């Protein structure tokens, strides 16, 4: 039991007596690790970052133990956005489950739909029409660009730059408007259906997409000039929070964070789904594994996504966008795992069917949750400002972490 720590509510200046209804005793450590964390050495203090803090993405709370400016220890506290999505899905039928998973990672919600849809389609053993597959690839890549441009601005904002986030929102806004024209919603699209997509491409979407594609690459490149060529930005991120490939694989890191360590693992190539095997694209990797590499890998991915969209638009066949399915989805008993490669890593859904119209069990794997556990090891020993840079470069979204 640590004894140096003193809850400041006992401080006479705040004067909350022990009998008062407002009095909260000091937390008692539950585990050995927690007891070690709660023990303060000389000159150390705790600082809460979050849940009401300008820089934590969403409602993450990070308890930082600092010695001066140095971060001695760090403990992310989760659960401020917990909704119990997995349990909600078990009490909904298969169509409803998709819209519960939608708000998990609200900046890239098409991927959160794609994973359960893939799992349910395996349960139903249904073939998705080719046009629907192309439309899914097209919209997912668009959403990937939207998510990465937001990341790019957000990273600069967490390092103190004001302008990049507004510039990158120009691209994101255009994509979001385009998808809104297609799906009717700006944030949570709810577009994918078991066996296809909800509605064919419409005229407004195509004309907006054409206009955007004609200038996208040049526009994104010019936005990058403000960040990539900035000495301060590069100096603050290079060599910060270095992640090596072995640790990354052991921790279950996926996506750009893994590829920045030199492991070219991408579900689109390694466990192909939809029409990805027919498309040509590179998998950008870097070997440094630091915050700058994580940033640059994402920037390269934007370029590859534009390349994919270009091919998809040229090769898209005609045909139906929805397979013939009964109105009430009632798969045979069994289990299936569906996964897609999202902007943050692998989104997976494991669903068990017991033959009724509701999933018996549903588990969601979210990359943000895995990546958030890296914040501690990567930040320990650095400065307070580096916590924000590392956290921004890992790019967690709290909706997915807390589920």
């Amino acid at each position, binding site marked *: 039991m640590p004894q140096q720590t003193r809850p400041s509510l006992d*401080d006479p*200046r*705040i*004067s909350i007596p022990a009998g008062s209804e407002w009095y909260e005793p000091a937390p008692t450590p539950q585990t050995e690790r927690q007891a070690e964390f709660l023990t303060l050495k000389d000159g150390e*203090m*705790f*600082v809460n970052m979050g849940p009401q*803090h*300008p*820089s934590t993405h969403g409602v993450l709370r990070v308890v930082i133990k600092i010695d001066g*400016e140095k971060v001695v220890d760090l403990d992310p506290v989760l659960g401020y956005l917990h909704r119990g999505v997995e349990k909600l899905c078990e009490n909904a039928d298969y169509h409803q489950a998709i819209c519960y998973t939608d708000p998990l990672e609200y900046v890239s919600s098409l991927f959160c739909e794609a994973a359960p849809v893939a799992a349910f389609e395996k349960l139903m053993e249904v073939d998705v029409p080719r046009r629907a597959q192309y439309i899914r690839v097209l919209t997912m890549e668009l959403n990937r660009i939207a998510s990465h441009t937001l990341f790019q601005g957000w990273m*600069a*904002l*967490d*390092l*103190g*730059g*004001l*302008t990049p986030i*507004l*510039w990158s929102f*120009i691209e994101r806004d255009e994509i979001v408007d385009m998808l809104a024209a297609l799906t009717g919603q700006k944030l949570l699209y709810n577009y994918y259906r078991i066996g296809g997509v909800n509605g064919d491409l419409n005229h407004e979407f195509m004309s907006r997409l054409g206009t955007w594609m004609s200038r996208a690459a040049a526009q994104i490149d010019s936005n990058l000039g*403000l960040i990539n060529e*900035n000495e*301060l*930005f590069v*100096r*603050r991120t290079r060599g910060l929070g270095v992640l090596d490939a072995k640790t990354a694989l052991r921790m279950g890191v996926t996506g750009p964070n893994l590829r920045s360590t030199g492991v070219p693992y991408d579900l689109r190539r390694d466990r192909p789904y939809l029409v990805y095997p027919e498309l040509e694209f590179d998998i950008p990797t870097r070997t440094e594994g630091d915050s700058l590499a994580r940033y640059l890998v994402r920037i390269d991915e934007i370029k590859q996504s534009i390349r994919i969209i270009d091919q998809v638009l040229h090769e898209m066949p005609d045909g139906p966008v929805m397979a013939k399915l009964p109105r009430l989805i009632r798969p045979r008993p069994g289990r299936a795992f569906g996964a897609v490669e999202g902007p943050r890593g692998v989104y997976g859904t494991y669903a068990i069917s017991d033959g009724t119209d509701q999933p018996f069990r549903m588990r969601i794997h979210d990359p943000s949750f895995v990546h958030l556990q890296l914040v501690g090891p990567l930040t320990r020993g650095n*400065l*307070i*400002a*580096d*916590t*924000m840079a590392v956290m921004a470069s890992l790019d967690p979204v709290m909706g997915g972490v807390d589920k």
Partner: protein
Amino acid sequence: MSGAALVWARLTPAGRILAVLLPVLAVGGALTTALLIVFGGAIAATIGANLPIVRFLAASVITFLITVPTAFLLIYMEMKIIALMNLRIGPDRIGPAGAVMSIVHGLKVLMKEDYTPPSVDVPVFTLAPVVVYLASFMTVMVIPFAPELTSVGLELGLLYFFAIGGLGVVGLMMAGWSSFNKYSLLGGIRAAAQAISYEIPLTLSVVGIVILTGTLSLPKIVAAQSGSLLDWFIFRQPLAAIIFFIAITAEANRTPFDNTEADQEIVAGFATEYSGMRFGFFFFAEYVNVFIVSALFSAVFLGGSNAPLVLPFHPEIIINLGSLGIMLPILAGIAPVIGTLVCAAPIWFASSRIKTWQALVAGFLIFGGLSTAAIGFWAWAMIPALGNLIWFLIKTFSLVFVFVWMRGTLPRARIDQLMGFAWKWLLPASLLNIFATALAVLLTTSGGN
């Protein structure tokens, strides 16, 4: 209940104060005017007899008049320019292009709740914004706006500037320590570390200029730069100018050195627990500081009130209004009308689609612009102080624009990079600058002998 009591009951506290204050002010104003008319001669004689007190009063009033609108102007500039850089519109609701926005902001801050959390150290907590504001307010008094417009030409002006300007960090420390908040504490200590680190290169970088001019008085330093463009110290001491610019950016806590209030890390830094007018004074002092450091840079390195080009001709336009006699009031009455008509006529004749009143309005605006320009040109030609002031303000506000530009462009430096840069690069560079200057002076002097 009578009508007056009903009205009184419906008033807000602010309205009640105004309802009492306004009649008192009106009566007081009328009385003062009457007294001035009756005893004006005697008062003028008394003022003439006690010149130093009058000078002091004028100086302090003018300093107030400089700081308050300057801060508002700077806040508006920052909002609008950063908005344009962000491809936003920025303030556009109050006044033309949102120009009155910052004044309304000020009034809003004045009327907000000024909360004192029970855990703070109240006297220190209240005194901190006073110290921060004083540090910036008292440095305005040595700024040489023009040779004729320096409120106090202290002999040790430069040193005074650094001494008083350095006091501001004491206020930030006080705020950080007394707030009983960890973010505030971190912000205050960061402010102290940063300010003391950059104080050294800041003060050392101008030593070269002190060697060259042999004085610490700001008006004399400005006078030493009169002449051509190449006499400005930015061309004679370029290294010092670079060091000085970086150091004042850090002293004014501006991006990329705004670690003391890095909102992504420590929320609002030392000002986290402040609200209402006490917060307002921190905010106010920060913007006055930006103006002051820009003014100091333009005075020391950009030639202050000296014009970059000295015009070869000196127009002398002497207008003797007295010689007009009775024609003066008649001209003053007729000239605007005739001018407006003359300016409106070509517009009226140009197209039949332009209505008469539109032509008249346009004519009035054109005449107003022309006459203002003419009077301005006359004043610039005949009153040297005005021209000097305009040059000084142009230079100062260009620098303010550079600060705002940096804020819109750059991310923040980390604290270890910040401190390492001050001690490992700026300090040796400023010492090098001193010795290079001393050596050059030595060589030229001995060569002359």
